[in-house]
């Protein structure tokens, strides 16, 4: 290996570098846990936080503390961690290979002497889980849990796998969210309710139109949600319909796209609005489910009325506010203008009324549900990485190898050198048990 490469490797494998990298990653993640991150905080909440923490708010703006995970500094830390882990994994594998397959003289360890010959000693050790791993000039080597040598190698390899696979997921993932009302069809060209995609991912669109036929939901006696499911129809061509269902924890896969049932659902109200210019328009007002029959669900609609007028809505699924079993909703609309309430209007299906210059008519209503569409590659890599990490940890902490070397003595007996490669004092009982077992064998002849 060229000299420069060796110094780079030494730098990344230095225990100080490794410790610094772990501490930097830890500091970055802790910072992101303390400062609200823009990808998971609404702009309004972010403004509130900045107003409450003026100093941190200023630093957050200039240092990018509100976007730690997409900050070049964090990418640099991750890259450093990945390079260090990659070198370390290689080193650990070479070491584990050497320990597993190239036996060396054991210079330290406890020494036992017995009058027994090599054969019976080996038999006794094998019965205690020691596996023969090599022989050299009459000296036999045995190891209990030889896979324990590979613990660190697997642990580091797993972390490399997780980082690489997570990077692939982050760069290529496509994710779209739809909130559809019952009977509504979403065309592939229509925009998503919400969308996320990786830097290298193309725009996400469905392979064909999709219609939400039915939303099925049920409640526990205490009004908590028990189950949510949707029946969907895929419309790949004229006169072709493919009906499928999806529910929470029962994922639907269609042409490589995984479809998840969201926990959010409620009722959509179709309201005809006639404005001051006598122009009629039908709006779909989606409100999330109520938490209890007597507690209304609220939503605010900014783009319905225009002219600085805000439409607020609340609803009860049972107008009598008694149960979730009876579907006879009451929708209450309220118009605010310039921060002042103009008026309120209760509506039942088919009824109409006015608030200020606006006339409203409730045409119909129906349930809606949230569906999550995901297309990503790399997940098996992430989970495989996690599994390898766990396997490595289990090998390292649960099965430290115990080595035994059996040498023949000139008097026909044997000398046994024994050591535990890690946590030695934890296994002194094991050495004592071997001694007792050999003494018993000697006595029994």
């Amino acid at each position: 290996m060229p000299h420069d490469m060796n110094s780079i490797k030494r730098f990344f494998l230095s225990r100080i570098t490794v410790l610094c990298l772990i501490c930097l990653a830890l500091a970055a993640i802790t910072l992101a846990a303390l400062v609200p991150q823009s990808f998971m905080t609404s702009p309004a909440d972010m403004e509130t936080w900045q107003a409450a923490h003026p100093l941190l708010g200023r630093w957050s703006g200039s240092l990018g503390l509100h976007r730690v995970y997409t900050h070049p500094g964090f990418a640099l830390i991750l890259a450093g961690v990945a390079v260090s882990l990659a070198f370390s994994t290689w080193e650990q594998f070479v070491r584990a290979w050497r320990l597993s397959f190239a036996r060396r003289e054991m210079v330290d360890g406890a020494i036992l002497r017995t009058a027994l010959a090599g054969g019976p000693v080996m038999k006794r050790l094998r019965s205690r889980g020691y596996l023969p791993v090599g022989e050299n000039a009459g000296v036999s080597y045995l190891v209990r849990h030889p896979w324990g040598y590979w613990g660190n190698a697997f642990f580091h390899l797993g972390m490399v796998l997780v980082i690489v696979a997570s990077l692939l997921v982050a760069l290529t993932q496509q994710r779209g969210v739809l909130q559809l009302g019952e009977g509504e069809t979403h065309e592939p060209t229509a925009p998503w309710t919400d969308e996320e995609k990786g830097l290298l991912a193309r725009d996400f669109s469905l392979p064909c139109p999709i219609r939400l036929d039915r939303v099925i939901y049920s409640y526990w006696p205490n009004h908590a949600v028990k189950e949510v499911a949707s029946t969907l129809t895929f419309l790949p061509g004229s006169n072709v319909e493919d009906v499928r269902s999806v529910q929470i924890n029962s994922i639907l896969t269609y042409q490589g796209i995984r479809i998840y049932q969201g926990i959010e659902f409620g009722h959509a109200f179709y309201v005809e609005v006639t404005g001051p210019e006598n122009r009629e328009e039908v709006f779909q007002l989606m409100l999330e489910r109520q938490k209890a029959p007597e507690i209304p669900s609220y939503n605010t609609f900014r783009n319905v009325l225009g002219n600085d007028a805000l439409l607020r809505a609340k609803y009860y699924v049972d107008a009598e506010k008694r149960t979730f079993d009876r579907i006879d909703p009451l929708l209450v609309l309220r118009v605010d203008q310039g921060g002042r309430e103009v008026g309120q209007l209760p509506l039942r299906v088919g009824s109409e009324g006015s608030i200020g210059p606006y006339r409203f008519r409730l045409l119909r209503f129906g349930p809606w549900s949230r569906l999550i569409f995901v297309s990503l590659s790399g997940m098996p890599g992430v989970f495989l990485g996690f599994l390898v990490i766990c396997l490595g940890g289990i090998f390292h902490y649960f099965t430290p190898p115990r080595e035994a070397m059996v040498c023949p003595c000139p008097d026909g007996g044997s000398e046994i050198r024994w050591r535990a490669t890690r946590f030695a004092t934890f296994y002194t009982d094991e050495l004592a048990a071997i001694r007792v077992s050999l003494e018993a064998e000697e006595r029994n002849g």
Partner: protein
Amino acid sequence: MDRQTTVYVLITWLAVFCYVVGTIANTVGMIFEKERAERGSYGAALVGLALHGAALLFWWQIVGHGPYMAPSEVLSSDAWITMAVFLLFLRVYPRVKPASIIVFPAVFLMIALSTMYNPGIRSLPPTFGSIWLVFHIAFYKISLATLVVALAFSLLYIRKGARSSARWLERLPEPASLDLYAYRFAGFGFIFWGIAMLAGSIWAYKSWGRYWGWDPVETWSLITWLIFGVYLHLRRFFRLSGMRAAWFFVFCFVMALVSLFVTSHMGSSIHAEYFK
């Protein structure tokens, strides 16, 4: 209180009684060198564990979900798993016996705290109906149990290193051994914590298509895991040991408690349903 809840509370209190007897006998046995009392304490703990297990199973059958929704269920199952894991380790590695002087009171404390909450029946949100959630929670509990054992050894080390003249401390293993046991059990805790995060990410991916969402609970769990990683790294490569290692572990343990019991109360977390 209905009949079923009364039966559950009654069996739980019987278990509490056994744990109290076990804790007192263990402390007396350890401090005053009463071997019979110490031996008896493990018997009392075993009986308590059996009764406690029966209470948890009975409640599981009534509410229709595992002990991970209501605070009383969470703390009670934490106590059960801590005692079960300790007794299991005691069987495999008898050298961990001295930790009982801290593990027994810790178990008693957890179950006592659980009885202060109303054992109301909580309904299971639909996303909680996955087997991966059961693994996710079970491994965090096992991790907590091993960390309690590691804490016990760290505290015993600190106590022994405080130059006390107490005779019972002299009967404890050598400080170097206590230090090593703490290290070993911290390693177990680190691994089980990692497995719990893995199970959680599989659960999340199966429930809403995201294996990691930087949710506050997830983030603090990762932070805790990394802090344990720093502890283990310092021990292995920087030969951190003795008093400094013991105090560092106490800090790690406090972080683990914050991760498990405080962050899940954050309203912005999807975990807020749990332990409400």
